């Protein structure tokens, strides 16, 4: 089972030009043309990078598909504004994914700071123990994937985000607390409620 584990969640795997290597000449030519405001180059820039950025943002924001398109647009706007500061230390895609990662985390922070996102959420911290699903169940990745997505979509927004941030983005509770202006205890309580709610739904759905 361990050998089947994918790369740590939240890490960015860049295909194509590896980080640290010189920028491919066609990428350099494209960027120079975009900086010269060549409209066709700008179209090519969108064509080349919209899919991987969209895929990454969808992945990070799932199941909040309604937020994805606006965030992708923000990534490209920031990229355009900062294009002249691009240092070629990474591939263009790596650079864009870095912007996307920051934008996603900004969104997590903003959403979890909103008091209303935590209000009106049923306090399930006192819920009784729920049996954890069998480990074998997790082996079927496709099924687990589908079920996870479905359950995340059913959770209150704050619960879904806090679980994604903690486990899929691999941020520590301390870091999340600091970034949202909450105490670590408050963040732990929120996580506990989110986990309990998730587990109840998981159990309720069966396998």
């Amino acid at each position, binding site marked *: 089972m361990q050998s*089947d*584990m*994918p*790369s*740590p*969640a*939240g890490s960015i795997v860049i295909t194509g030009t590896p980080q640290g290597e010189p920028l491919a000449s066609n990428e350099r030519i494209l960027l120079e*043309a975009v900086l*010269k*405001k*060549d*409209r*066709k*180059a*700008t*179209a090519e*820039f*969108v*064509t080349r990078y*919209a*899919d991987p*950025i*969209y*895929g*990454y*943002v*969808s*992945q*990070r924001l*799932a199941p909040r598909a309604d937020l994805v*398109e606006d965030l*992708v*647009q923000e990534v*490209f*706007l920031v990229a*355009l*504004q900062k294009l002249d500061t691009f240092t070629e230390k990474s591939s263009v895609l790596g650079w864009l994914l870095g912007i996307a990662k920051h934008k996603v985390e900004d969104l997590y922070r903003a959403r979890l700071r909103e008091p209303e996102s935590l209000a009106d959420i049923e306090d399930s911290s006192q819920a009784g123990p729920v049996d*954890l*699903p069998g*480990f074998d169940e*997790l082996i079927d*990745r*496709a099924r*687990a*994937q589908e079920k*996870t*997505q479905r359950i995340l979509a059913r959770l209150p927004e704050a619960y879904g985000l806090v*679980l994604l941030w*903690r*486990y*899929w983005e*691999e941020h520590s509770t301390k870091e999340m607390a600091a970034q949202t202006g909450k105490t670590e205890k408050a963040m732990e309580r929120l996580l506990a409620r989110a*986990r309990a709610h998730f*587990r109840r739904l998981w159990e309720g759905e069966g396998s």
Partner: protein
Amino acid sequence: MNDEQFFTILAANTDARRGAGERAPARLKSRLYSTLIAGQTASGPLLSLPATQAAGRPLCVFENLLRVMPGGERVTSMNPCRVCHARVLAEHFESPPIYWPHCPYVEFRRR
């Protein structure tokens, strides 16, 4: 298995599949392009159409019309897409009925 282990394993086993290979909708690409061009236009004129063509990038029929119009670089640096029906359709529909060769909005739809 405690809570922490459960969620760690669940995240590790489901993350790789989420959104993998998912492609951006054509209408999003269209909107991205329009937004970027608007941003570029706001900070000064675009590269002129003759210069764009000279760089080896073919123009659409409307851009070609603009290219041969009198008025010099002021005209050929304008963005005709701003008033083009192809842009409007492409920003709102996934498969808009637009077919002009070398129109970026048509290209977004095809990919």
